[in-house]
């Protein structure tokens, strides 16, 4: 680049190169945003659409999160609903059992402070905020066990807050639900 030979020409060249780069940058950003939008709409992997609430003060007394209603249950349409709560410093149920290759509706909330929940080896990851219900459509493609730690600091026992998920064969799962409406690993 001729730095000072011809100031006017140099300036015009500099401005042109710069404009090209700016355009390219805008295109890069546009493509990235477009890709995320397309994948989001196309594969329906958008976040929870609606805000739902649950009062942590009365969770254990009434509503969908009473203790006898926690765990995995088969719905009329063949899908499965899992309900869970997090509290300092455990999950209820502490071990969740789910069937393979089945659409699962995961519903969870917190009974006290902010917790989180992620299932290692999957993309399942959500916050549990007291007062609100986290809703997550999930599906497991392989048998096995996963650890399910709390991923947000929730107090001095946070490091001990690890749950588990067991993915079992669908028929085995259905056989077990015949005996009991709400399943956890211990049933």
């Amino acid at each position: 680049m001729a730095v000072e030979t011809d100031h006017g020409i140099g300036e015009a060249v500099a401005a042109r190169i710069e404009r090209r780069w700016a355009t390219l940058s805008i295109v890069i950003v546009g493509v990235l945003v477009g890709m995320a939008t397309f994948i989001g709409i196309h594969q329906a992997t958008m976040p929870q659409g609606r805000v739902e609430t649950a009062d942590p003060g009365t969770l254990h007394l009434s509503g969908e999160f009473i203790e006898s209603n926690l765990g995995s249950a088969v719905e009329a349409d063949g899908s499965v609903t899992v309900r869970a709560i997090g509290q300092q410093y455990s999950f209820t149920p502490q071990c969740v059992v789910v069937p393979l290759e089945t659409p699962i509706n995961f519903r969870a909330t917190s009974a006290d402070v902010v917790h989180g929940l992620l299932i290692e080896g999957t993309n399942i990851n959500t916050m549990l905020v007291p007062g609100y219900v986290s809703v997550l459509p999930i599906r497991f493609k392989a048998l096995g066990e996963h650890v399910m730690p709390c991923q947000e600091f929730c107090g001095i026992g946070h490091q001990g807050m690890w749950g588990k998920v067991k993915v079992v064969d669908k028929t085995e799962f259905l056989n077990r639900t015949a005996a009991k409406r709400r399943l956890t690993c211990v049933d």
Partner: protein
Amino acid sequence: MLTNKRLILSHFWLAFIVFGAALVLGAWQMFERSPLNAWHFNPEFYYRSVTAHGSAMGYVFPTLIAMGFGYAITEASLEKPLVGRRWAWAGFFLVAVGAVVAMIPVSLGLASVLYTFYPPMVGNPFYYIGVVMVVVGSWIWVALMPINMAVWKRENPDKPVPLAMFANVAGSYLWGWTAVGAALEIIFQILPVALGLKSTIDAGLARVFFSWTLHAIVYFWLIPTYIAYYTILPRAIGGRLYSDAMARISFILFVVVAMPIGVHHLFADPQVGAGFKFMHSVFTGLVALPTLLTVFTICASAEIASRLRGGRGAFGWVRALPWQNPILLATALSLVMLGFGGAGGLINMSYQLDASVHNTQWITGHFHLIFGGAIVIMYFAIAYDLWPHLTGRALESFGLMRTQLWLWFTGMIVTTFPWHYVGILGMPRRMAFYDYANPAISPQAFSVSMSAVGGLMLLTSGVLFLIVLIRGQRAPASEAGAYRFSVPLHMPARIPVALNSFGLWLALMIGLTVVNYGYPIAQLMVLNETNVPAVYVGASR
């Protein structure tokens, strides 16, 4: 022409003392949670330490750097003494006293809430009061920067505001408005509960307010670094700044789009609907723009410097750069870390990919690489560059400076690459220790040990940095001359009003924040049943 040298030096020294102390805590944390640690400490100490380390590194250290550097820029670029000297000292003391007020309850274990202090967990009120004092102290700086620019403009009606000052004022506006989110949360939600006037709090609303601050604060941390790229590097290596206008556009873009994107921190949260998450995700894409523009301008400016020194060839010019110059070295290492970190950032910004790394160790690895790495290494460069002008003594340990910078870079890579990796494996963040005997966790053990080794390298580099500065204070006196910023290759004869003032951009900044945050906040404010009981930490009430 720096007149208030003591003021500026006080900011830098306090910043680096805080930094050094927090660095020790960081290295200890890394060791404590690794398999190298055979004894288990009381886990509560870990959370105390992370609260102290995070608050010091996130709130106190970068704020003092931005303030001190801001005062230096004001005097050096406007070539006149700072207006409001007394106020500036008052701001400094507020920050200093606030930091102490916040750290006392933290060190006593009465406020182990981490630097994000998510309610309904509520700690000792003095922690929050201390944080507010730090912010209010910095708001004095926020007010002084535009005032100084306005005074200068009145005296120099036909001249464009120097780029360094323009960017500095952009940073001050950005911080002023960024801090409002957390300030609203602390003052209206948390403090009434911490003081016992109320016992319930909306945890979801608090997270929304905090996200307003949490994202844009990173640009506040970043701005001194970008100012150094644009206005220090080209001069330090004997070159020119490629483009003055593009630099202004980059800083303006930060001011406008930094705030209305914070909800990307809430992608996995239940209290914000999909629509606003999507909006914020789109805007998040836009903040990549100023960085792409900056990288181009900086590389082009370096090329100019090299060609002026006789560098030739399409890539051969890179070799002709003055690599023994610490400012160049720091910038190059910073850009490499920014590149890696930026690639990681693109992953975080997409809702779908974020789900696999949200709140894992990937996130802590990511922000240490960008903030601790790319940003902080330029804070070192700023100090090295300014020191002789502040102390009136030469800094001559160039070899030591280069060693320090390389060690920081290497340490950052060794610390953060394995840190990212265990995050991909799903390791959750912010835990005092892990059961490495568990077969589900044992594959992560080696990587965490690596990070701990990197932590020691960083600590060593931090010590070297302080040694260089202390040596500088003791060197024989020598006149450093006037402090100058880079000159653009083509100085525009006239600058459009839009690139020389902030009215329009501030209106956009506030307007976009209101559009993107107004509805989610209003919706949660009318939802009364989501106020939940506070959970007090560290106190037996």
